[in-house]
């Protein structure tokens, strides 16, 4: 697949973060700070049933007993939860069945981000759930999807309209006590997306959620739950941006995926939260728990991520391969520049027989950034004839950045084959000179070489987003060489 490059080269003239603007909309907020009252207030604002409030309160209790994890190769400043606003919602009319009812300022915002919410203007074949701060603003193509029995809605709506499904699956993959940030999210999450693909249905379009942080001093805590019933298929994409601010903002999300027998979910992320400025001021702290469980036999979950944003990224999309013959995949490109820090990777937990997993990770570090791959491959005794292959490559630009690899392997049976390969390379002077000699300046050359390096992963993205991701890689590395 040849991806059109000239559009990319054209667009990459401005090196600033393009999505750093702020939309002036009337916003409803709750007072800052975190306590039981905050949790109750959020639940009340969302008009939630009692069981949902119970879930939150239970999570909050667990959160209070936990500590911020310090095992990652990250310098995490103390986060003051009393300075964060846990719920901020652009004021809109209560029902959003028609676009006419969406605030024009919000439509404009998403237009500017390249995510038009008018159905006829969207990339053919992509349905979008647009989330701004704590609430979903609009979900497109809902009716068209409903005809096939597919549920694609904001999380809040799902709680109201499909409580049985939400109750059945919520927290079954990432329990609220899973980790510090998961507990926090479970207590205060405000919105997100819910997807249910019924038995035997192949979702006819890409589903996507676009997360936007807008308001200042807020945290974003969204939750995504995707359930693929027997013999179904869906491809899902998540994108995110935030305004440029000097203060750090917290993003702590949870994504849960469940695949039943022979179902397949492909989950792609293009993460472009504001990374902070060149001196390391500002930027999003991105602490995300993403996990899928292949419950059914021969089911498959595939994660693809392109991580270019955030001041700190802490994220390990994982697969629990429970069903026999199930397959887990993780494809990742993580770019860090200036003072960014990323500690990211995957966990593949083999519980079923003949399960297979693949990890392809490409780290690219520039500036004074730190980029770590951390991964676990675990095979239990009963999981006979399992296979894993992991390839972790690091590319360094300059000599002030760091690349680290932390692979953990825990194999409890003899019939499993687990392979791990790792390489570290520097971008070659000879490659740069070759490109220079053909008329490219060094910045363009770096973009080209890096995109080539990440090709294997970029090719896994849906076409429209591959082009976007390619541009992003180039933009994020501007000013990193020469």
């Amino acid at each position, binding site marked *: 697949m*040849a*991806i*059109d*490059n*000239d559009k990319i*080269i*054209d667009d990459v003239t401005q090196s600033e973060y393009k999505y750093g603007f702020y939309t002036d909309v009337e916003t409803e907020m709750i007072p800052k700070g975190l306590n039981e009252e905050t949790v109750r207030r959020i639940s009340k604002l969302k008009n939630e049933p009692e069981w949902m409030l119970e879930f939150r309160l239970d999570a909050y209790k667990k959160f209070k007993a936990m500590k911020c994890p310090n095992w990652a190769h990250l310098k995490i400043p103390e986060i003051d939860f009393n300075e964060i606003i846990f719920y901020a919602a652009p004021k809109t009319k209560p029902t959003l069945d028609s676009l006419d009812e969406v605030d024009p300022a919000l439509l404009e915002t998403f237009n500017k981000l390249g995510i038009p919410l008018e159905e006829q203007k969207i990339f053919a074949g992509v349905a979008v759930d647009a989330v701004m701060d704590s609430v979903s603003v609009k979900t497109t193509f809902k009716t068209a999807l409903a005809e096939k029995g597919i549920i694609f809605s904001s999380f809040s709506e799902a709680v109201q309209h499909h409580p049985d499904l939400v109750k059945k699956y919520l927290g079954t993959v990432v329990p609220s006590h899973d980790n510090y940030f998961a507990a926090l999210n479970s207590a205060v999450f405000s919105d997100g997306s819910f997807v249910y693909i019924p038995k035997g249905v192949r979702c006819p379009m890409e589903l996507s959620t676009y997360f936007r942080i807008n308001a200042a001093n807020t945290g974003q805590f969204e939750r995504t739950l995707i359930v693929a019933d027997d013999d179904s298929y869906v491809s899902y994409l998540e994108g995110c941006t935030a305004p440029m601010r000097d203060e750090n903002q917290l993003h702590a999300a949870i994504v849960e995926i469940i695949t039943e027998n022979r179902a397949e979910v492909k989950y792609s992320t293009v993460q472009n939260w504001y990374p902070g400025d060149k001196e390391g001021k500002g930027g999003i702290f991105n602490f995300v728990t993403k996990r899928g469980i292949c419950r059914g036999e021969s089911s498959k979950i595939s994660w693809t991520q392109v991580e270019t944003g955030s001041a700190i990224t802490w994220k390990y999309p994982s697969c629990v391969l429970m069903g026999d013959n199930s397959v887990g995949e993780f494809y990742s490109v993580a770019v860090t520049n200036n003072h960014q820090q990323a500690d990211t990777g995957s966990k593949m937990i083999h519980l079923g027989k003949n399960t297979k997993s693949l990890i392809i990770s490409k780290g690219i570090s520039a500036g004074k950034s730190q980029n770590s791959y951390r991964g676990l491959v675990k095979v239990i005794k009963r999981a006979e004839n399992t296979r894993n292959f992991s390839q972790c490559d690091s590319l360094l630009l300059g000599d002030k950045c760091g690349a680290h690899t932390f692979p953990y392997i825990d194999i409890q049976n003899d019939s499993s084959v687990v392979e791990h390969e790792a390489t570290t390379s520097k971008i*070659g*002077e*000879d*490659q740069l*000179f*070759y*490109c*220079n*000699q*053909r*008329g*490219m*300046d*060094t910045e*363009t050359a770096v973009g*080209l*070489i890096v*995109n*080539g*390096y*990440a*090709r*294997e992963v970029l090719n896994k993205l849906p076409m429209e987003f591959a082009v976007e991701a390619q541009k992003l890689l180039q933009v994020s590395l501007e000013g990193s060489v020469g």
Partner: protein
Amino acid sequence: MLQIKNLHASIDGKDILKGINLTVNAGEVHAIMGPNGSGKSTLSAVLAGNEAFKVTEGEVHYFGKDLLEMSAENRSREGIFLSFQYPIEIPGVSMVNFMKTAVNEHRKYKGLDPIAASDFLKLMRDKKELVGIDSQLTNRSVNEGFSGGEKKKNEIFQMAMLEPILAILDETDSGLDIDALRVVANGVNKLKTKDNAAIVITHYQRLLDYIVPDFVHVLSQGKIIKTGGKELALELEEKGYDWLK
């Protein structure tokens, strides 16, 4: 178009070029021959702007401009093309992407809009035919897994795409089979006009049967020790370099 005066260059403190003088005019073909390690590739790298080499003395003018002041990419955009002795592999970058980027950078420098996709594909097709390169090669990553000969053909293909004013061909003939040599030489000849020029570095007089030089220079230990007409190449083929010392 090109005047090289008393050019000295070194790498890691080691002097390699020790006073090169050479003038190239429009319409001319200059052949440079000389023993291994005499500095031929170094000269071409310095002319192309490879900063790994340090110019310690001398000057180079290109259409009256100080060439040594120009960045490598601007030299390319101003029409200097180097066919590498050892072309570089760039994994994952398709030839199409690579060439389109290069062509558009050249166009931007001239104040032109990026080339339209259909025009670009036509250009690729025409130039592939001109230099007789296998169509499949341009669907692959830049030089990745190309055979030695394929890499050389690919260099000439790129040259055809960029239509340089001054082409420097560093041992483009080595590694080519006899048919490929003829095809590549024909390609070079077709690109030749009265307004451009070529510096052809080679060890073999055979190439010069096809690309007929106006001058043949012998480079030895960082200096041009002899200059003659095309018959000098035949003489070198017969006698080697020892008699010149």
